[in-house]
């Protein structure tokens, strides 16, 4: 136990002295600060520029109506449909309008060629130009309104009918995926990044000790179980500390700038994670991290050269990525309780992501959660002990990288 403490301390120190680790953490915190302070900075910049005549920047849209009698209605509807434009009516000829657009006198124009038809004139047609679609809807409204007015409905009533407002309310008895989608997404992604990154680090760390032959001394000084658990738990703590630093600073900076963010639904939902979900996050993060880090460590111990690591860890990475894809696909399809997800939420290698997603985005019976966590804990311990055995056998095998079969045989014999 004392050895475990010594190893844990030594390995943790390695992370905090590692310039890359510290650098990435600081970079992420600064990045988050920049994002979180962005609206505040923008308002500062905008208020400075407040004196400038904003209207001069607004694009100009010309309307050439077909029937001058309904000209005002059409203009009114277009003006409200295109709030970003200054809308003017015109009676210029089409050729004049075309010249005007080419010369940059105004930005675009709609020439009505009938009650129900128009031509859209614009300079460069942007990929995202939706003006024609908006105009279609606007002209349809104008036509309907004119039809009603000519049918004897007063203009006021016609406007009221067209602008009818339906009040609605949705009561979700389970969980609203609209709200929890974003933070689940962020958490799964964080889990994915951290496990892959730190897992690789554990594997490289072990392989470096092996290739530098520091292992010769380590293996005769400490128990393989202490070595393995010390290393893996140290990197787990380092990962957790990094996540805490990043998410903690995000939360802090958000609260500092809360008023500037206004009612941004996405941002608000991200920072309104239910506390019990955070607890689940912590449980699944720790266990998921440990189970993979143990495997990465064991694989690292079998590589005889650092270059071998990338190919050796491939099977583990594959399992992990498949799990990730299943979870992500189910998430975006909205059906997080499908059969594949149900199965995945009990398999220890996928359950950290799958079960967590189900808990976050659906209603999962308590016993299912308990069984999933129990399986995960048992397999984490099992994999931990097994990987320490592989480690003890693997670190002393030099030369060619042993096949999985050889390792299993060697472990079985020992």
């Amino acid at each position: 136990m004392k050895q475990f403490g010594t190893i844990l301390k030594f390995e943790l120190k390695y992370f905090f002295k590692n310039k890359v680790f510290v650098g990435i953490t600081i970079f992420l915190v600064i990045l988050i600060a920049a994002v979180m302070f962005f609206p505040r900075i923008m308002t500062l910049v905008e208020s400075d520029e407040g004196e400038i005549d904003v209207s001069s920047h607004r694009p100009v849209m010309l309307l050439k109506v077909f029937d001058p009698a309904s000209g005002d209605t059409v203009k009114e509807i277009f003006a409200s449909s295109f709030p970003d434009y200054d809308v003017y009516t015109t009676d210029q000829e089409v050729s004049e309008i075309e010249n005007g657009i080419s010369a940059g006198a105004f930005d675009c124009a709609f020439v009505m060629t009938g009650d129900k038809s128009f031509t859209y004139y614009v300079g460069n047609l942007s990929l995202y130009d939706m003006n024609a679609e908006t105009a279609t809807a606007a002209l349809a409204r104008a036509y309907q309104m004119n039809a009603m007015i000519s049918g004897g409905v007063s203009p006021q009533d016609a406007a009221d009918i067209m602008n009818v407002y339906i009040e609605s309310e949705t009561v979700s008895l389970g969980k609203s995926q609209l709200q929890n989608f974003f933070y689940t997404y962020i958490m799964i992604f964080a889990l994915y990044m951290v496990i892959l990154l730190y897992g690789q680090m554990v594997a490289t760390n072990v392989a470096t000790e092996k290739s530098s032959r520091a292992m010769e001394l380590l293996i005769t000084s400490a128990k393989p179980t202490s070595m393995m658990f010390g290393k893996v738990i140290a990197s787990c703590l380092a990962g957790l500390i990094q996540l805490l630093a990043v998410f903690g600073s995000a939360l802090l900076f958000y609260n500092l700038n809360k008023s500037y963010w206004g009612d941004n639904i996405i941002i608000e939902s991200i920072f309104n994670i239910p506390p019990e979900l955070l607890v689940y996050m912590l449980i699944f993060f720790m266990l998921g991290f440990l189970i993979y880090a143990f495997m990465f460590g064991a694989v690292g111990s079998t590589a005889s050269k650092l270059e071998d690591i990338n190919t050796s860890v491939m099977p583990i990475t594959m399992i992990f990525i498949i799990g990730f894809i299943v979870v992500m696909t189910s998430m975006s399809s909205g059906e997080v309780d499908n059969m594949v997800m149900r199965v995945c939420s009990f398999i220890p290698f996928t359950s950290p992501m799958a079960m967590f997603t189900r808990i976050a985005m659906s209603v999962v019976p308590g016993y299912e959660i308990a069984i999933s966590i129990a399986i995960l804990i048992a397999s984490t311990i099992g994999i931990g002990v097994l990987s320490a055995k592989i480690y003890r056998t693997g670190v002393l095998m030099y030369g060619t990288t042993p096949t999985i079969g050889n390792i299993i045989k060697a472990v079985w014999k020992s």
Partner: protein
Amino acid sequence: MDLELVNIEKSFGEKKVLTGVSFKAKGGKAFGLLGRNGAGKTTSIRILMNVFPANSGEVLIDGRPIDYSKTGIGYLPEERGLYPKKIIIDQLIYFAELKGMTRKAAISAIDYWLSRLGMTEYREKRLDTLSKGNQQKIQLITALAHDPDIVILDEPFSGLDPVNAMLLKDVVKEQISAGKIVLFSSHQMSYIEEFCDSIAILKNGVVAIKGDLHEIKRDYPRDRLVVRTQMPDAVRRDFGSACSETESGSLIIKLTSPDEKKAVMTRLTENYDIDEIKVFEPSLNDIFVEYAGDAPKEA
């Protein structure tokens, strides 16, 4: 304190690595564990250090099974290696702590050894900034800092210049006179001869010969004479196939039995101009080649 390996058997998979290996090393004495590459020396050392268990057999300290929590072992592995990118003092403290020392005790022991080996100036340096010989001295500290009862040195002199080799010799002598068990493994026979009272030679996982080095030499059949003469051709003609020549130009005459010694000596001195004549005593090198080599052992 005595260390004893009794009937150690070890296989890796199908391959049998050690067969009935037994030897005994005494405190205050150096013990030489010899053998060619792949003879089973490192495996024996690893079993002794509990890196992996033997299939059968025992490791005893004073007749009782070894208690690793009470018996300190210091090890200088043949494959040298520490953390190349880390500060020397940090990793030395780490290894000493792993051996059960407190941080404070570790620092004072390490500082003693750094100054004893003339390495104090490198205390805060990264290991990979040091020369190979100096790295080896740092590695030696990991084997000695925790004041172990058993010191295992695998090829301790390889890569050291004569001055450093002298320094290491002094350190080894200190360790021996402090009553520790010093276990040597080396291919440099001169060092083994200089330090070790007892040896064991392993061949293909079996102890080919073991015991007190002087006794082994004395028990060696005294049936050969070393002759230095001004008339080598005449002597060679006289003794025919029983006579061979060494690299240094001396002649070796094999006797049909040790009892013949006096008669042959007389015959030589009376008939030829002889500078020197003595009974052939094998060097450790000769013994090693004979017991560990591929050639069939002479009767």
